[in-house]
């Protein structure tokens, strides 16, 4: 295995590619009690249309998430129980871009790893179990529909994007999942759950060579073909619609304000764009920005306010949101502040402090093995090495961040989604 050292952040990662195309990354941390393994496929809620065996497949919304639920079924029972019986805490998640299965355990790591690799790579569904799962996922969809944070986020995606599937709810709808059969699941597993489309990352008190040996022993030898995905072509630069409003059982209006950024590039440039996006957010409306202090002082936002930059294949955006009695006023103030920053530039001293602050927060984020493993996996799919962020940070200058603000933060690229209380006056 190749050993990569990152002395500035005190980490070392072992990396290799198996004969079947699977990349493995191991971040060794002997001083920790627990160990963590993350096995992910480059397949998420937005991968609905793809090319397989020479034909275009159009699958209903929610298949990736449905698969995630059903993968735990094995011919002998349920892998969740097998892992839990070993004292491991297993779980899985589906995002718009990836599906990840993981566990953490303080004992029997290698035994647990075998279970993880085996249940994720060997599909076992029956029509009966799929029918039963419709009920469980149906309940989850209802829960998501009652969750204002989730609703407001996907509403913002509908504002920003014309056709990109980032706006599709990851779990799908009651209607869309009703079209899912055992055959749909087998077909999607075959397409996306092959070693060449997956990655394994691990951290903790583990032996990298043993991990490779276990992966070789359990996983299939065939890397699988390459998968072409269709996200509906390039998005226009402008937001699809300026705003969307919903009414739900909430106490105060909840909002998400977003700005469509340039489509994320591949490779190390993706990581650079992300750091630029995060710094742009901080300079514009971050906790130490003049605008944040003003909005907070005027009571237009409270400490539920949060913000960030996100990027997925085919799309990237800045977003900020929380609770506000007047989300439109927040939007107007953010646009005016962006205008000012484009004219006057970001304050030198503020920029220096923000860089220090964002850098420190990123280093502290490495405390979490979960976070580190997920970042390594996502970086692998996007073809960048996440742990090189200190070097990229060094190369970012104030004009780079100002250029992002100038290009992205304007009325044409802006969307605002609001969930208002039911029965309240307009």
């Amino acid at each position, binding site marked *: 295995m190749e050993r990569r050292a990152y002395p500035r952040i005190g980490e070392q990662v072992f990396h290799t590619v198996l004969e079947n195309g699977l990349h493995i990354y191991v971040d060794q941390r002997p001083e920790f009690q627990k160990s963590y393994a993350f096995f992910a496929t480059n397949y998420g809620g937005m991968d609905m249309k793809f090319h397989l065996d020479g034909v275009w497949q159009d699958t209903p919304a929610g298949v990736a998430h449905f698969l995630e639920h059903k993968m735990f079924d094995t011919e002998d029972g349920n892998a969740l129980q097998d892992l839990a019986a070993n004292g491991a805490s297993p779980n899985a998640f589906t995002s718009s871009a990836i599906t990840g299965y993981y566990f953490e355990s303080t004992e029997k790591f290698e035994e647990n790893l075998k279970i993880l690799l085996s249940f994720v790579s060997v599909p076992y569904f029956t029509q009966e179990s799929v029918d039963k799962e419709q009920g469980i996922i149906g309940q989850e969809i209802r829960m998501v529909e009652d969750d204002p944070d989730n609703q407001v986020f996907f509403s913002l995606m509908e504002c920003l994007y014309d056709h990109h599937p980032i706006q599709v709810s990851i779990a799908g709808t009651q209607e869309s999942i009703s079209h899912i059969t055992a055959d749909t699941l087998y077909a999607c597993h075959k397409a996306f759950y092959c070693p060449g489309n997956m990655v394994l990352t691990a951290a903790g008190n583990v032996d990298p060579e043993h991990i490779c040996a276990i992966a070789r022993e359990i996983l299939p030898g065939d890397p699988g073909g390459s998968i072409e995905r269709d996200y509906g072509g390039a998005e226009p630069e402008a937001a699809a619609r300026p705003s969307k409003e919903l009414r739900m059982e909430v106490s105060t209006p909840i909002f998400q304000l977003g700005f469509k950024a340039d489509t994320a590039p591949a490779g190390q440039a993706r990581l650079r764009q992300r750091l630029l996006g995060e710094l742009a957010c901080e300079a514009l409306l971050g906790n130490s920005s003049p605008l944040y202090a003003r909005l907070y002082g005027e009571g237009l936002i409270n400490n539920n306010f949060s913000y960030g930059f996100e990027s997925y294949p085919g799309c990237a955006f800045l977003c900020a949101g929380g609770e506000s009695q007047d989300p439109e006023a927040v939007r107007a103030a953010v646009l005016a502040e962006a205008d000012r920053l484009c004219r006057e530039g970001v304050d030198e001293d503020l920029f220096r402090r923000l860089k220090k602050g964002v850098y420190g927060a990123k280093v*502290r984020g490495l405390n979490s093995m979960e976070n580190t493993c997920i970042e390594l996996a996502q970086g692998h799919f996007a073809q960048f090495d996440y742990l090189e962020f200190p070097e990229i940070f060094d190369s970012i200058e104030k004009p780079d961040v100002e250029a992002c603000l100038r290009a992205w933060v304007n009325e044409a690229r802006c969307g605002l989604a609001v969930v208002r209380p039911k029965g309240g006056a307009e």
Partner: protein
Amino acid sequence: MTNATRLELLPGVHLTAVQTKKFKSSALGVQFLLPLSAQDASLNALTPMVLRRGTERCPDMESLSAALDELYGGSLEPVVRKKGETQCVGFVGSFLDDAYTLGGERVLEPAAELLGEVLLRPCTQDGVFRLDYVRQEQANLIDRIRAQVNDKRQYALIRVVAEMCADEPFGVDKLGSEAAAAAITAASLWNAYQEMLRTAPVEFYYCGSAELERVRSALEPVLQALPGGGVRRAPARPQQKSAPAVPRRTEEVLDVTQGKLSMGLRTGGIDVWSGEFPALLLCNALFGGTTTSKLFLNVRERLSLCYYASSQLEKYKGVMLVSSGVEFGKVEQAEAEILAQLEQCRQGSFEDWELESARRSVVSGYRSILDSQGRLEDFWLGQAAAGIDEGPEGLCARLEQVTREQAAAAAQKLSLDTVYFLKGKEA
């Protein structure tokens, strides 16, 4: 191994310090321990939020954030927690560990200085807190109390506790009530703050690479400035009550698509201070605390009655809460099944593998506390508030000894007190 050291710095003022080099950050915080009460909970909860608005030197959020950014994006969050019937309010800070600074500069000392400043030298107006800060944070607190309804799963738990413990301090929410929050004035808040500084037990916490002596010296100026002259009395242990002969029932209607059923049980006197506590922990894991639990496997997986069904312990009080999300039409069936599963635990009808996986899960949960600065801080705060000095390893050793009879005996002591159901408008 946890190298946790607990020192009394002044009467009623303690430092818990965990020395380790495994994290990139160091945690530094201070909490005041107060008796939870309907009258004062909102006042106490508001105090750190107002303190966090500004100090003499950094009078607004912008300058305070700038000071934190200089400390490599350190955080200093106002926190309010409920540990049994003790309300803990203060600040939890996280700072980059000195080993990772760009120029090799020290972060602990300036971080401790900033913590002391936020705690003891607030930005004032006419001898009390600034009125605009109080008004705003008061409005934020009221918003937070109102916003509890937004998270239905959590809301259903808050409601069952409020119903079940209506005449006990434990029934008070950690943020207090909207009415109590609305009644706060700049003067009443200032008085409560002064009283807290003088009389509440103080818990400092540090976790990171610095030597104990260095931590102690860094905190010395804060101790010097802490007002004396009061007696800091350790928190009282909560009263244990028994369940009524017929469980209380309450329903609420909101516009939701999924119902929430929550149930409050009394543990029959077992709490964190009891010898039987490890048996209760195991019993909870077996019943509804894990994905191999009876609730998960039967109520969710086998019968598909709920999207989730789980149980949790309020270990500093002697209460168990069951939480589930169900379709409106299935609530009676779900409740009956939850109780049937409890009966199984009482009768000792569980397989060896069920008991062992429950044990592995609880042991693993406690051992992994050692890997998280946030969880470690929270664990040690709870122990401090309870006056217990056992660390996670000691508890794990006791968990290994629990027999199936002891786990079943803990289940036999559980009794249903209150059932709360949140249903939709159309149901």
